[in-house]
């Protein structure tokens, strides 16, 4: 029983990280209908920015509340800038072109970032993984039995942040002027432009928001698993993408639910079945969901206009 509970907690914690990354995916997809394959790598860059900031701050300062806030601020602002640049120079020129074109530039950027960060030239960090400093002192908040079940402070914090972000984004999308503009662009950006919505600015802002989210997610991920490496974005990005699709891509709460479900499925496969089959089961689960609900758990398949 305790075992089950511990697996549940582990799974939710893993799912939380997927959820945070998946939110960025889903937002960008929502407005651009673009699978932003570079999203995971933007996250990785954000983590390295946070790492560098923590390094500069030193042992004392980085554990203070202000220090943590500064680390997050630097990483998120830096990534927002990176997202802006990527959108401006790699995606915007291709907006009126076939969608696959932008996908290829996304892959190109993903390669450039993940392989580029493996170089050990100049400021680039090199291929070996690094330990992320403990910016949040890990504390056990709940212990049951002889450490049969342990809940850590960062698990709770991450989970709350994910839920808060989900609610915040939902509010942003459905209750603000900017959100209305986003939805309009998502529906049809040409018509939106005719209605006087500055589509370029809306898309750029969405991108920056998504990238900042990725940086935040990446930092929580680095705090959770304490290791940073140039390829970390690749698989987290892939899993988050899967999560977003399970939930129905473009759907904000769907991404979070999909991610939590995926985290739990993986956890239970490892915990109670064969750990070697984890990835196969994760993808098999995805295919199963899509066969039953072709638009994901919450997405709807748009009826096509003839």
């Amino acid at each position, binding site marked *: 029983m305790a075992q089950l509970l511990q697996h549940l907690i582990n799974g939710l914690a893993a799912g939380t990280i997927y959820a945070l990354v998946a939110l960025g995916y889903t937002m960008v997809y929502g407005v651009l209908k673009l699978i932003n394959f570079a999203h995971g790598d933007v996250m990785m860059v954000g983590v390295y920015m946070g790492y560098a900031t923590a390094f500069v701050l030193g042992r004392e300062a980085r554990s203070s509340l202000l220090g943590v806030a500064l680390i997050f601020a630097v990483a998120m602002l830096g990534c927002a800038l990176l997202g802006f640049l990527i959108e401006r120079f790699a995606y915007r020129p291709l907006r009126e*072109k076939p969608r696959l074109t932008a996908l*290829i530039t996304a*892959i190109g950027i993903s390669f450039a970032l993940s392989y580029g960060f493996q170089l050990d030239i100049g400021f680039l960090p090199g291929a070996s993984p690094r330990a992320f400093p403990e910016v949040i002192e890990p504390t056990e908040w709940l212990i049951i039995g002889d450490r049969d079940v342990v809940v850590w402070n960062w698990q709770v914090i991450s989970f709350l942040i994910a839920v808060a972000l989900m609610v915040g984004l939902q509010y942003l999308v459905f209750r603000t002027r900017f959100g209305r503009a986003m939805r309009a662009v998502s529906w049809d950006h040409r018509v939106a432009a005719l209605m006087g919505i500055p589509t370029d600015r809306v898309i750029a802002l969405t991108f920056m928001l998504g990238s900042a989210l990725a940086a935040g997610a990446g930092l929580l991920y680095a705090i959770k698993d304490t290791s940073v490496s140039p390829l970390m974005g690749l698989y987290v990005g892939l899993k988050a993408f899967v999560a977003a699709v399970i939930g129905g891509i473009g759907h904000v709460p769907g991404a979070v639910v999909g991610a939590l479900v995926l985290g739990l499925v993986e956890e239970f496969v490892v915990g109670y079945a064969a750990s070697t089959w984890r990835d196969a089961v994760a*993808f098999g689960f*995805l*295919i199963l969901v899509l*066969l039953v609900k072709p638009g994901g758990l919450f997405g709807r398949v748009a009826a096509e206009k003839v």
Partner: protein
Amino acid sequence: MMETPALPVPEARSPIPASLRGIFPVLVALPVLALFQWLLSESPFAVYLLSVMGVNIILAVSLNIVNGMTGQFSIGHAGFMAVGAYISGVLSLNLKEVALSFLPVAASDQVLFTVALLVGGLAAAACGFLVGLPSLRLRGDYLAIVTLGFGEIIRVVVQNTDAFGRALGLSGIPQYSSPYMVYFWVFLVVLVARRIAGSSHGRSLWAIREDEVAAEAMGVDTTGYKVRSFVISSFFAGIAGGLFAHFVPIINPGSFTFVKSMEIVVMVVLGGLGSTTGAIVAAIFLTLLPEGLRSLFNALGTEGTLAQKVDQIRMPIYGLMLVALMLSRPQGLFGMREIWDVLPRWIPRRRRGLS
């Protein structure tokens, strides 16, 4: 949804005179390939590079049938390749000691190799059928993620099966493959792709690609065509995998990841969606590019730290070049046309359609 600019009408005419159209290409191809094989026999590196290039061409041209012509978005091509590679590899490995009594050993090896290739291809085609089926219900990106998931599942299966060598990979597969064999299949896949494009079958695929609902309304059996194009495409991916398994010394799950699938997608998009010759040129270009960069860096000398590190720089540069290429030519090298449509004017240009 994005609207694509008005399409050039796919050509029904072919540059070859009608009387010779049936057997002519094969008749030309065989001696050309034999010559090619003879010219190469002395350079192992050229043989290896050309084999890799040929496999990439088969992969790109076959993926183009699904992604380019039919407009379905598959990003799990490496999975089909893996199926072909492992099935035919295991078969050849087990038949290593077997020879057909009525043939000389070398000929018998080639016959068995062909059989292994075909079995691998058929296994991949069966998987293609399985993956094609969900396309009854799924559209666009959802189908993409299913194909991706399939590719990853194949990788996990291989990693957990002792007969497939698990993480170490399968080594000792007899090296039967030769540029002759590879380019014969390149020739076949190109022939098939071109014939599909020129046939009414191809028209139906283009119709599905442009507007599925309209195509269905016009009486196109969209489901049937989509599944069929999946099956054909994955068959050739399986063949490519089989060829690959018979000239690389070891096949390993790490060679068939989703990164490999993306590389193939890149070739197709870079060449121009729907353009067979575009896919070929892109495949050739992207295979040679890393080696070309290597030559370039070697010219800088072997001394010093920079020369030691330059080989690492290839991959980031490759990524940036992809971005630059797509920005400068968003429709791909040839757009939806074929190479003879875009060659300079001294080659008589054919009718360009409505644009």
